[in-house]
């Protein structure tokens, strides 16, 4: 056994309740283990115990033992454990500490005092393992490459130390879908090469098929441990309801179809699902023209970008002649490769930046000639990090601040502030300092500070950035539910979550290299392979499934993108067939 954890209990200094409570398990050399659970369940703490960050760098109380590759973690400092366990974190920005990429990868081996020639060899080998070539990255700064490439560089920097165990803590959380897929492909290659791999992840879709085991953590305890296929087939309800695990779309669809299909094996990939369902679906003789789901009717124009270009002071051209119109009441997603110009576009929309060329009109006024305060009263903008926007010492004052700045009367300020605090579940924290809130609460507060002004346009710049997929999705569902109640508000969301886009957005604007390469309802864009590839996007698994079924002759509507939509079509088609018979 390469990892042996025995009756592990860990309690943080600041907490009365243990974060881990009697955890015991072993991992065999070469195994691929997926660790899943809701936010705050203790899975990241568990990873930190394996890496030795707990207890060496974090204060608290430890019982039991953690042994990696024959060594108890309490006996060696983190720096010495690094040749046994390599760990890749969620945010690539804060784990790259060098300027040039090759220096970053050489950093670990140099710290181990390896001779320069051997370090160079290790750098070359590590780059090859993550699919990067040395000549490509020579003389490149670490912050110049895309998020997915940064994360692969972070993996290479760990691999260069040749640890037998690799730990990944939500390695794809901040990446665009294609970047995430590239990182997962790299992790799979490493496992094939013999590494013991442990991955903490919320996006399970691409990982469940390769993992040997899935360990489910809930409230500091291991509640399930077994092959992902078996757990998803037999314990999906426990996983979803009790443990807050998001079931992958393929598995969710397979569970809904289980009365009609004898799965062998239970499908975890789109390929397996197509293979087992295509023969029967192809016999359904009644093609149906499913009406695309009703979307918000386009209202009046609220914003217009006309041939807008923007060049940053250092010379980076972020936008190249972008034209775009936003309508009242629309929910518009902007997606695309990291660095494609999404944030620049959003900042131009609110007048934080002014176009180098072209014109931006907002609510009927040319932004170049508009009053800042008037725009800010009518347009809300939520930044990636909520705490950047906090200016007051209590949650109540924070929400009331915008109304005070715009000189509303005292009764309106009180009424609106209390209503919004209630709406976002923040009333009980009204006297707390904003920085004392949890990550999700801070995010809700930052949105509340904008919504209290009842803006006509609300812009959310990567609102899920830096948060785990599960809690960020719940937050977005809550937020967009609130937004929907406010008819007439135009919402612009910069996001990579295509399932969220399908569920809540009327339009998807896809950007690449500073230009808009796609602009249509999401379902109309999903079949366009080339556009998705250029925008580093991957369609949701149900869309992929539908596309493959159509390619194999099943007449299923191309616009289907959700599990419930597919089930509606399937049941209708089956019933019609029964009537025909």
């Amino acid at each position, binding site marked *: 056994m390469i990892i042996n954890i025995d009756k592990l209990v860990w309690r943080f200094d600041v907490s009365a309740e243990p974060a881990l409570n009697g955890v015991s398990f072993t991992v065999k050399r070469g195994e691929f283990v997926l660790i899943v659970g809701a936010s705050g369940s203790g899975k990241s703490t568990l990873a930190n115990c394996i890496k030795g*960050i707990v207890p060496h760098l974090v204060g608290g109380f430890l019982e039991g033992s953690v042994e990696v590759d024959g060594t108890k973690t309490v006996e060696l400092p*983190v720096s010495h454990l690094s040749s046994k366990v390599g760990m890749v974190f969620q945010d690539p920005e804060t784990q790259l500490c*060098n300027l040039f990429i090759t220096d970053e990868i050489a950093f670990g081996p140099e710290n181990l005092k390896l001779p320069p020639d051997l370090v160079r060899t290790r750098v070359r080998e590590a780059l090859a393992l993550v699919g990067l070539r040395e000549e490509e990255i020579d003389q490149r700064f670490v912050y110049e490459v895309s998020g997915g490439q940064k994360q692969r560089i972070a993996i290479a920097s760990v691999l260069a130390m040749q640890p037998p165990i690799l730990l990944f803590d939500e390695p794809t959380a901040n990446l665009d879908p294609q970047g995430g897929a590239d990182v997962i492909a790299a992790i799979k290659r490493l496992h094939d090469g013999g590494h013991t791999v442990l991955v903490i992840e919320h996006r399970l879709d691409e990982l469940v098929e390769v993992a040997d085991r899935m360990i489910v953590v809930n409230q500091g305890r291991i509640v399930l441990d077994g092959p992902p296929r078996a757990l998803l087939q037999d314990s999906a309800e426990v996983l979803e309801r009790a443990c807050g695990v998001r079931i992958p779309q393929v598995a969710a669809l397979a569970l809904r179809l289980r009365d009609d299909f004898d799965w062998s094996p239970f499908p975890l990939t789109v390929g397996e699902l197509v293979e087992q369902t295509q023969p029967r679906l192809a016999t359904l003789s009644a093609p149906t023209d499913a009406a695309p789901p009703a979307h918000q009717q386009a209202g009046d124009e609220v914003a217009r970008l006309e041939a807008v270009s923007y060049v*940053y002071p250092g010379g980076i051209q972020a936008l190249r002649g972008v034209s775009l119109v936003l309508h009242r009441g629309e929910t518009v997603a902007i997606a695309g490769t990291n660095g494609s110009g999404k944030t620049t576009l959003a900042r131009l929309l609110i007048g934080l930046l002014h176009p180098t060329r072209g014109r931006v009109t907002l609510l009927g006024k040319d932004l170049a000639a508009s009053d*800042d305060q008037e725009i*800010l*009263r009518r347009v809300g903008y939520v930044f990636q990090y909520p705490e*950047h*926007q906090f200016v007051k010492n209590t949650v109540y004052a924070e929400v009331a601040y915008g109304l005070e*700045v715009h000189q509303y009367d005292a009764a309106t300020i009180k009424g609106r502030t209390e209503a919004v605090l209630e709406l976002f579940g923040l009333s009980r924290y009204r006297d707390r300092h904003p920085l004392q809130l949890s990550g999700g609460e801070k995010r809700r507060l930052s949105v509340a500070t904008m919504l209290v002004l009842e803006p006509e346009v609300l812009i959310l710049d990567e609102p899920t950035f830096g948060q785990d997929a599960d809690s960020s999705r719940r937050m977005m569902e809550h937020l967009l539910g609130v937004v929907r109640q406010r008819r007439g508000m135009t919402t612009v969301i910069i996001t990579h979550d295509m399932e969220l886009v399908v569920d809540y957005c009327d339009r998807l604007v896809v950007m690449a290299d500073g230009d808009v390469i796609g602009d249509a309802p999401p379902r109309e864009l999903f079949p366009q392979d080339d556009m998705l590839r250029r925008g580093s996007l991957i369609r949701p698994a149900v869309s992929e499934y539908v596309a493959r079924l159509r390619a194999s002759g099943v007449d299923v509507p191309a616009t289907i993108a959700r599990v419930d939509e597919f089930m509606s079509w399937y049941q209708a088609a089956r019933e019609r067939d029964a009537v025909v018979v």
Partner: protein
Amino acid sequence: MATIAPARRTSGNVIQYVRTTSALHRMDAMSKLIAAFGVSLLVVLINGNVELLALFLVVSLGALVLGNVPPLQFLRGARVFMIFGSGLLIFQLLFNHSGQPVGQLGPLGIYSGGLEFGIKKMLSIWVVALSSFTFIWTTNPRSLIVGLVRFGIPYRFAWALFLVMRFGPVFEDELRIIKDAQRVRGFKRRGGVSGKIEQYKRYTIPMLVSMVRKATNIAVAMDGRAFGAYPDRSFVDEFHWSRSGLVLLGLLLVAILVAAVFGSPFVPKQGEFRF
């Protein structure tokens, strides 16, 4: 095999290594570091404003021509220290009434002592700041670490300096985002001392939160890759003195000796104003 997009130009941060080729870029880091200190020493030794102005022009030309620093980057950097240096000049004009009256600016009397000393302070700041900026613009921080360690500085200390240079631009970006974020909230910058204090207070707390978060993550990531596991470490690259660096140091040494031994030929007499 994935490919990486071609290199982009810099993001326009003021305090950032400029990746290009130039005589100063090819020069070894330690010569440039010593030269930056040497220029500061020269500033202390020089009394005349003409010499200080000449020194400022020499360093400017060095940055632009020998360092190939983009003029826009140079001007954005210069703006920072020119504003600060000019503040010192204004302070002297307001409060230093030594020497002879040399003019009138509205209700304000300008005196030779205040003007002369103010210009000296302003030019001194300009020269010292510009030589430091030129060092940062033209020195790969990595080669600085290698040089410092070669001279016996413990690598942990050298790395601390490196991290300042590495993450300076990151925090510069962060401050810009925080300013924008608070502008969106309707926060208006006010003038006066109390306005400035309010402004700094509002920027400081989010900046501290951000810096602590980043610093913690970076420290854990560095520890996780064996940083500090041993008292020393290896480097794939080695330090070598460059010929151009030695020539620069030689010239600077001569200038320092001349300034120290002969002083400035333009030292003004008591009560006399000389630019």
